[in-house]
């Protein structure tokens, strides 16, 4: 008994320390997924619902005559609340002597999306097929995404949107954001409900001049509303394509071809276009 070197207190400390060390890996293993879930992009981490695609858009500004058919088709298809133009045709006025030109602005579906980065609840998220979606069942309506988007592509339902029977009959899906509801953010979604059925987004099909091309980066092909399918890499390269405000580093998935060149041969000149009116909104940059 007299040879006892380790007292009870020391013994308990040793046991405690041993236990503490032994549970570190266990706790660590438990904490790792927790940490991942905290730092992941919200409740839709790595959503692969869009399949093996990388959607993008190419807009040929030289072909855009500002008719506004895209906006009309979009609003009709999405039953967009009044005042919202998910694809909006601006008339860009440049400083000095440069001519103004029309500029259709959908959501840019940025690969480094500021709206997704600032969303506090993960309602805005980036899907593996490249599009940015809004889960309106989670959105708290803080509007940080509206403040963060440099393209003013986001809208907010300031009041209960007017409903139609057809709209209310839909069951909510992040791919349609229908029926619309009060107090949440809205924006262009690249029409995932159409593309999943192999159809073009509403604005692309509606464009009478074929200015809007849509396609899959993985397939290296884009198609417009007048039936042209072109090789994406060649179109971007030959057409000297750029992305709007590239310097911001948002990496948009919408490419623009310059307004005064004709990189692609027009299949047939859109001489008499039936859709008229819808003057583009005049803007200054």
């Amino acid at each position, binding site marked *: 008994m007299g040879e006892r070197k380790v007292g009870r207190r020391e013994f308990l400390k040793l046991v405690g320390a041993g236990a503490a060390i032994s549970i570190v890996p266990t706790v660590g293993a438990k904490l790792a997924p927790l940490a991942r879930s905290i*730092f992941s992009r919200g409740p839709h981490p790595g959503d692969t619902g869009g399949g093996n695609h990388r959607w993008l858009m190419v807009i040929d500004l030289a072909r855009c005559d500002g008719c506004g058919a895209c906006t009309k088709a979009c609003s009709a298809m999405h039953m967009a609340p009044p005042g919202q133009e998910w694809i909006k045709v601006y008339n860009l006025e440049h400083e000095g002597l440069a001519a103004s030109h029309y500029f259709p602005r959908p959501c840019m579906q940025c690969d480094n999306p500021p709206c997704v980065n*600032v969303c506090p609840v993960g309602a805005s998220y980036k899907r593996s097929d490249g599009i940015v979606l809004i889960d309106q069942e989670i959105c*708290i309506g803080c509007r940080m995404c*509206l*403040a*963060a988007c440099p393209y*003013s592509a986001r809208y907010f339902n300031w009041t209960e949107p007017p409903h139609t029977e057809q709209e209310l009959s839909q069951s909510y899906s992040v791919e349609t954001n229908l029926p619309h509801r009060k107090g949440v953010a809205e924006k262009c979604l690249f029409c995932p409900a159409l593309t999943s059925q192999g159809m073009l987004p509403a604005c692309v099909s509606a464009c009478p001049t074929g200015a809007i091309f849509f396609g899959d980066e993985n397939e290296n092909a884009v198609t417009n509303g007048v039936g042209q399918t072109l090789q994406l890499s060649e179109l971007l390269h030959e057409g000297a394509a750029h992305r709007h*405000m590239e310097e911001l580093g948002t990496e948009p998935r919408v490419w623009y071809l310059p307004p005064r060149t004709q990189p692609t041969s027009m299949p047939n000149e859109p001489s008499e276009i039936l859709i008229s009116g819808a003057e583009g909104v005049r803007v200054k*940059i």
Partner: protein
Amino acid sequence: MTSIFRDSSKSVMGSLNAQEKVLLRPVMEWGRGFYLTVGGLAAIAAVGVFAYFTQLRDGLAVTGMRDTVSWGLYIINFVFFIGISHVGALLSSILRLTGAQWRHPITRMAEAITFAALLMGALMPIVDLGRPERVLNLITNGRLQSPILWDILSITTYLTGSVIFLLLPLIPDMALLRDKFANAPAWRRWIYKIFSFGWRGTPEQHARLERSMNTMAILILPIAVMVHTVVSWIFAMTLRPGWNSTIFGPYFVAGALASGAASVVLAMAVFRKMYHLDKFITLDHFKKMAVLVLTLDILYLYLNISEYVTLAYKMQGPEKAELGELFTGRFAGMFWTTQIVGLIVPACLLVLPSIKAVTGLSRIRPLRPLPLAVGGAILFAISLATPFAQSFLGTDLSLLIAVLRVGVLMLAGLAVLSLLPWLQARPVTSFVIASALIVVQAWFKRFLIVVPVMENPFITEGNAALSLYRPTWVEWAITAGAMAGFLLIYFLLSRLVPIVSVWETAHAKSAETVAGPAHSPLPVPTSSPEV
């Protein structure tokens, strides 16, 4: 409850010493003034609550906010209140750590401002939410990448720290009330009992309290700096021209400290008058606070210059539109008023009592009231006669009108000059006016930080009328309600516990008596001059 309560409270007052009598009177006697003040403030707050229910029913469409200007008065109030809240940490912590003995009568005022302002400030973003019923999503689905989560974490930490920081030095005073205010209503006796935490005033308890307060003073400083930095990052983490600035953190912290310190000067003046605290809050305190406010005012002015001059010199890129609106456009009046009347004039008013030359002004004849009044009357008569003269003579008198305008401006300048000796003889009035200007400036400066930037995004509407922001009555009512709520919480706190720490003031006094006035670091002036 009036007569019985008052009689019994008088008997209680008998067992207090002279100092305790003065400091505890507002706590022990809730007269008619108390209920009128509470009723008035609660009524204004109720209007704000009513406006909020309108907003809940009809959505945020009842506000002036739209897709271009998607943040408005609520976010402005949020930044304003969080800014005001900074002063508790500043005064209590920095003055404690530097051992400034003069702080004792004002630290609790400052800490209570922090508490009340944080409560109202934290409420504002929730009022701003489109889906307030989902506010808990911030916890269940919170994402740490979002600056809003940083805000929530830092503000809750700061609120917790501020409550502890407010409660710790309250313990001995709570115990005093527990022991001496036996005839208080049951709920108040309960509060005093709970929050005195078994305080008996033993040396060991004093040592522990002292250690805890020092620890909190150190802990609260980085938290306070963090809070307002993170608030500024709500803006600075976006790409918006005008917000996309590296200076925003220190810029907001400096503005917050200036407005907070100024609001303490206002609180000192109001409480001194209302609770007859002339013996505790002396001219010396005002003078020391004036130096603090002046320093912070100049610091904020400097950061304003740094922020705007670097952009204005280049006047290019996406900031051009917003800066144009600020310097010469729609917001020019507000912008230059905040800079000149809100920062430069207060700086002059704060140094005014220390300038010797001003007294000479009163010897200049045109600066006396009578010549000024006569000059004003003559100018007024001429300006009334001018239209008649113009129609009678049939000649263009625009030159005369221009001369008249210059005359009015000069007269106004002379009137201001003639006020200077008057203000100089009343340093507290001068400091209070300066502080009020700084606090009002703070609110409008936040308006200028939020609204012009939102009205001028990268891609602007050609039709500018669509993107202009005009706050509606709902927003103004909620703003007024929030201000009233802040004052109400602050006022109630000052009637529930002594707003000047009884034990610390007594402690400081006794320390001074032992050391002798010559050795005390900052002697309290024996007589307070006319103020």
